[in-house]
């Protein structure tokens, strides 16, 4: 992969350019754009990281979160986060990840509590994004962690100080892409081109047997 030259090298390039007048587009500053102010950054930077970076000051309790959830979220996600229609379930599914039909929810799957705060703040409620106050987002996060039995006490109040003490049950079950090792056998092989099988192939399964392909006008309701 292309590596960015280290700082010393950049300085050297600029220095050379100044001395001998060689254009080095790489390290030269163009002066394009304007410096952005701390206030502008603060207003737009809504990201929250697992280490707590980005968490705004604020607090909210499980109980406050429950009321908000019923009012703002339950229409799609269900009163207990069970999910309505095809909207995502937010709770349940504990221990189901090895099952034939795993149920991936906040509690059973998500590795970081910060993801809840970050996502609610930027994208929820669906169709009315960035409308909730920070305290409301703390409360909703607390409620969602409570219905997933990660926060046990209904009296718990979540804030920017205690946030990073929350540990998610599935946090350690993620590992970096290992395809180049575990799928090494897909590389450098010379597949057979002639008389590769004796018996003719049989059809094992057919899309038409399911017939869930949508037509121009309608899509069948399944699931």
């Amino acid at each position, binding site marked *: *992969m*292309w*590596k*960015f030259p*280290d*700082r010393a090298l950049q300085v050297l390039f600029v220095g050379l350019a100044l001395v001998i007048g060689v254009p080095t587009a*790489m*390290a030269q*500053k*163009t002066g*394009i*754009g*304007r410096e*952005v102010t701390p206030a502008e*950054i603060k207003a*737009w*930077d809504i*990201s929250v990281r697992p*280490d707590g970076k980005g968490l705004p000051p604020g607090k909210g309790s499980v109980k406050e979160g429950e009321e908000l959830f019923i009012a703002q979220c339950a229409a799609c996600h269900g009163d207990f986060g069970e999910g309505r229609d*095809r909207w995502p379930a937010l709770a349940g599914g504990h221990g189901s990840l*090895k099952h*034939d039909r795993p149920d991936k929810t*906040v509690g059973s799957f998500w*590795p970081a509590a910060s*993801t809840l705060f*970050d996502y609610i703040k*930027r*994208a929820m409620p*669906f*169709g009315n*994004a*960035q409308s909730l106050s920070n305290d409301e987002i703390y409360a909703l996060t607390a409620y969602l962690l409570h219905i997933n039995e990660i926060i046990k006490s209904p009296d718990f109040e979540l804030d920017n100080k205690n946030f990073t003490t929350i540990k998610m049950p599935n946090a350690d*079950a*993620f*590992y970096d*892409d290992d*395809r180049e090792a*575990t*799928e090494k056998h897909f*590389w450098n092989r010379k*597949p057979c*081109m002639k008389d590769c*099988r004796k018996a*003719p*192939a*049989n*059809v*094992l399964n*057919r*899309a*038409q047997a*399911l017939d869930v*392909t*949508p*037509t*121009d006008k*309608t*899509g*069948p*309701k399944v699931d």
Partner: protein
Amino acid sequence: MTDQSKTDDDAGVAAGRRRFLGGALAGGLSLAAGGAAAQDKGAEPVLKSNPRNLPPNVPRWSKVLGDGVAAHPYGTPSKFEKHVVRRDVEWLTASRESSVNFTPLHELDGIITPNGLCFERHHGGATEINPIDHRLMIHGLVDKPLLFTMDDIKRFPRVNRIHFLECAANSGMEWRGAQLNGCQFTHGMVHNVMYTGVLLRDILNEAGLKPNAKWIQMEGADSAGMNRSLPLAKALEDAIVAFKMNGEALRTEQGYPLRIVIPGWEGNLWVKWLRRIEVGDQPWLAREETAKYTDLMTDGRSRRYTFFMDAKSVVTNPAPEAPLKYKGRNVLSGLAWSGRGKVTRVDVTLDGGRNWQEARIDGLVLEKSLTRFYVDFDWQGQELMIQSRAHDTTGYVQPTKEELRKVRGVNSIYHNNGIQTWLVRANGETENVEIS
């Protein structure tokens, strides 16, 4: 103009759908009962022929004037091509604002996808942004945080690059077996476009990277605030901040006025309506890189940061929407691509894997781009089991679906690059199947 001549001209699109092997087929094959119903999914409509348009007659369109130059200030396809559209699968998602539709691959040729047919994937609808008020903010671990207007961005040195964008969930419905009976639905979450833009490297250099910078986060200005983390090395290698596609401004649904292009890596990273890039020393673990776009394995653990789109191919003709119509000479056509480099070779079998032949690649063969292949073959009405297998410059050979399932099980949703099988029946009807 008489009424009669008008009807001559408007031979038109018949209300009915294609009947397989309609009058065109030489040699006594008849339509299989019930077969046509399955084709109501994007097949081209039956055009009614009018003998008055055929030799020795001179058709009306050879006698009268057509539209003047101002009739269509922005051109659209011929009215006879109305069936060539993006389609969605309504039951797949809860709402159309957070949903996906599919590129009609079986109707296209060459390697470039027309802008209006590039599949869409939105998480909060296709937002409309006035470019005069659009800003890109660069901040975090930089020497000087910067704010750019669209005009500012266009003052950096420009590049033109052709790359495929494939959704990581393309073919994701097919893990457990053949499910959707159409090439558009099994493989249509891919498109290939020439982007004009500037290198993200140049923009980051303008801000100046701190020594501990390792990751960036990209964020969209839509109401999903789509955010993804990207290793800095990739950002500096070949990421493009793009404002044009196929020569014209990005389409609204493709992120107008600004999107990021991450060549060869999963489409979800290609943040549209790009408004903010933060430089950091670790990933952010956003929803789209934890709850989604991670690959659940059979042991209950999940792969993360599975960015590369591995080599893949699909025969686009014949396909369920594009059955064989003629005995004798036919053109098999398809697409191959790899997120790790160039396509070096495509093998095609017509007999379910007993014998394979190298397909003829035609047109541009580019890094991380769709590549077009053909097999010109004779068909005598025998049953065919068609598959294609892509090879790339890293030596990767496209696996079968069964080989993938052996490693990953059936619940990983994403990155299904397994070999596709089309079964062509004696009447030309073509179906998505899996074979032994």
